[in-house]
């Protein structure tokens, strides 16, 4: 794992002009989505559905008039 010697010529060829700071084209924006989608697609433990059922039994949702 060598550290990239970040010197003067490190600017890279790509200079995007994204209007928004987290545009779909930015590396940060892409990674952020990937990171989050990973979490969202995680399997949900049963305990949450059980919890909601318990809540419902204990105290049925109030009906709005």
């Amino acid at each position: 794992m060598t550290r990239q010697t970040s010197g003067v010529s490190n600017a890279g060829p790509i200079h995007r002009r994204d209007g928004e700071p987290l545009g779909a084209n930015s590396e940060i924006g892409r990674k952020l989505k990937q990171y989050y989608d990973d979490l969202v697609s995680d399997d949900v433990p049963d305990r949450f559905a059980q919890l909601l059922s318990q809540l419902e039994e204990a105290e049925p949702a109030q009906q709005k008039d």
Partner: protein
Amino acid sequence: MAASLGFKGDLLAAIPGLRAFAMSLSQNADRADDLVQETLVKAWDKQSSFQPGTNLKAWLFTILRNEFYSQMRKRGREVQDSDGLLTARLAVHPSQPGRLDLDDFRKALEQLPEDQREAIILIGASGFSYEEAADICGCAVGTIKSRVSRARNRLQEILDISGEADYGPDAIAAQVMGSTVS
């Protein structure tokens, strides 16, 4: 009670997003699921205060966020001190330049202050507008914008990404990284 079934169903559908947000905030799987559980209980108790037709997801995120910060206050500064500040100066360098690894990104995200992390998550990943994010965080839209911007700059700095923004922090980052231009 069709309405209550609907509410329960809506809560169920919101769980994956809530868990992702909780995980982003707390950076800890157990704590995240506790937060989600607490959020569901509170949401159930307060459901009469939810106005149908308004944004349920934003309402739930607000509850979860409040719960997170209230737990943080109870725990004192433990979270920040142990996980945040000590590692804040450690730069994460992509193992392969140009190919940013997801683990590297995760580590970088952990180093952000909570307010910046939540802002960039809400805007860049959870799909909220600046206005919604401001509502969730109880602050001004301009504050959210500036937090997102600082979060993004900080991530670029930590990850040593350059050439992404035309006004980017490259010059500053280069100084911080100790690479002096002779």
